[in-house]
């Protein structure tokens, strides 16, 4: 277990800057997820922590020890790769023992440690097989075993679940989270899947365009997105953004008026804004903090537990997530009640949140 601090880390390839002054700090035992669309620089950052890519500027410290500039093997960091990168010619046993072998651990020590890890991951029966004879999920476990076996200070995961089918992905997600809770290790995990980020992380860094857009706990990221990108990237279906202008203590959305959220700040009369409303804040029944609004029901997508309804209101399209049993009738006018307590508001021009954090 160790704390990790990334301080103004920059990466340039030639003249293109793929990471600009990224700073993130996590505590021992944290599960940090770097999430963002492809090309946002998250994998580059992970490779820099691992020591596989050099820094162009900044510092990385693990437990107060500066590690950028060290060889990967001197950093005491283990990594699980997207393709698992198991050594094809070695059995599972030899794969897992490899880091110990490289560290000069004797045969007996290797066997004991491999047995321990195999028990933990329930892969004891696979030890004599070659990687080619394993399923995707089994390879995943072996890759984790190889990372776990030498008790590193920090674990890195590079999109480890993206090669698995949907069901297995959910299972392994749970398993990795359970493993983290059990071992209490510090983890940095890269993914483009916001659900993985939300479910596993204790800290999330949402990245885009080589910069951290927001860094915080999953709840902070979800409930108080720092900008339009974070708001729409995290959450599915995406947060609705309705264009409007501030008029007194209401927002004029083009005929439809909704109150300015109480925690908003820095707004002036006539300010062009976007009102952010998550699909699940809509309902068909009034509640303590809801305001009514009318719209035209355009389309219904039943998912089983929920109905995703596409609604036209004031010339704008929004998605509302309603309970499957909601009585919404057929296409035509619909009255919704939207919970304004959590509503967020963004500057239409800069995309920045106008909420007091």
């Amino acid at each position, binding site marked *: 277990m160790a704390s990790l601090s990334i301080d103004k880390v920059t990466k340039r390839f030639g003249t293109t800057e793929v990471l600009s002054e990224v700073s993130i700090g996590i505590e021992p035992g944290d599960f940090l997820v770097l999430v963002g669309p492809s090309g946002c620089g998250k994998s580059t950052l992970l490779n820099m922590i691992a020591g596989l890519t050099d820094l162009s500027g900044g510092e990385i410290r693990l437990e107060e020890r500066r590690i950028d500039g060290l060889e990967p093997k001197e950093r005491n960091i283990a990594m699980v790769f*997207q393709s698992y990168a198991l050594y094809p010619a070695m059995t599972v046993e030899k794969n897992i023992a490899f880091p110990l072998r490289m560290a000069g651990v004797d045969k007996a020590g290797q066997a004991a440690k491999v047995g321990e890890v195999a028990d933990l991951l329930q892969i004891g029966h696979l030890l004599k097989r070659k990687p080619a004879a394993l399923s995707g999920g089994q*390879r995943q476990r072996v890759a984790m075993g190889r990372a776990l076996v030498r008790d590193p200070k920090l674990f890195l995961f590079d999109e480890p679940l993206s090669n698995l089918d949907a069901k297995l992905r959910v299972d392994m997600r749970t398993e990795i989270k359970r493993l983290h809770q059990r071992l209490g290790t510090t983890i940095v995990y890269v993914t483009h899947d916001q659900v993985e980020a939300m479910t596993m992380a204790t800290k999330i860094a949402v990245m885009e365009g080589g910069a951290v857009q927001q860094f915080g706990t999953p709840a902070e990221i979800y409930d108080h997105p720092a900008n339009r990108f974070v708001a729409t990237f995290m959450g599915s279906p995406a947060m609705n953004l309705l264009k409007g202008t501030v008029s007194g203590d209401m927002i004029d959305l083009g005929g439809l008026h909704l109150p300015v959220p109480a925690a908003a700040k820095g707004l002036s009369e006539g300010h062009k804004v976007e009102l952010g409303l998550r699909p699940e804040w809509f309902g068909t029944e009034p509640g303590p903090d809801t305001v009514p609004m009318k719209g035209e029901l355009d389309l219904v997508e039943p998912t089983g537990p929920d109905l995703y309804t596409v609604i036209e209101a004031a010339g704008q399209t929004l998605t509302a997530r309603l309970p499957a049993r909601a009585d919404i009738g057929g296409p035509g006018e619909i009255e919704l009640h939207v919970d304004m307590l959590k509503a967020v508001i963004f500057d239409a021009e800069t995309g920045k949140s106008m909420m007091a954090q």
Partner: protein
Amino acid sequence: MTVDARRRFDFSRVVVYLVLLLAACFFLLPLVAMVFTSLKTMPEITGGAGFEDATILSPPSLLSLEAWGLAWSSACIAVACEGLRSYFWNSILLVIFAVSISVALGAVNGYVLSKWRFRGDNIIFGMLLFGCFIPFQIVLIPMARVLGILDLAGTLGGLVLVHVCYGIPFTTLFFRNFYVTIPDELISAGRMDGAGFWQIFTIILVPISWPIFVVAIIWQFTNVWNDFLFGASFAGPDTRPLMVALNNLVNTSTGTKAYNVDMAGAMIAALPTMLVYIVGGRYFLRGLTSGAVKG
């Protein structure tokens, strides 16, 4: 319908096989002629008394291994009448060193050029590739000068050096193209796990590289074994490879040409390459076409 088509007597298929069979016979004719001739006695070959009907393709009337024995141990090559035996071992030694060194260097080159990229690596690779296109004849005189300076002229070591130099571009190309298909993550994983440059190569990569090793070894073996020009140019009297000796054997005959000995000598010279193809041949194609190692 497809089931019917398979069961029905398929005329076009018969034609295909017939044509292939004919082609195979045609291509095998020279080999048959060689084997038959090498097993005949001279009177039978020249159509002497009692063998008036014998042709080059008629089977030997009585199998005689005499010519093989002569070619191996007592045929006259220039002034020495000791057969091909000592030259055969010259070639074996030459091949062992030239092939193993050029393949080993090619493997390391390919590993570096695909997995440890550095500034200008493509230029170096391009220059190496250029070596594949330099005709042998162009380098004969400069090479002779270099061997002279290195005091290796006329030695087996000198000949090994020449073949290693000419082999490296090809072996590098083979290995580089093979290692490009191996995922880089495998190397990264090795580095994370604490393996160094050589450990990653020998422990992780070499065990999965056998298809391309087979290709490179067959390629180099065939080239070095069959080479005549370098052998004739750079070998000394005691270090001549088999191909040069075979040429001398065939051209030294005084009086009647001993065709059976010539053919036996040629067969002896061709056998090792054939053996290598028979043993490694099925891996050769697999190695040439093998892609990424999954897993």
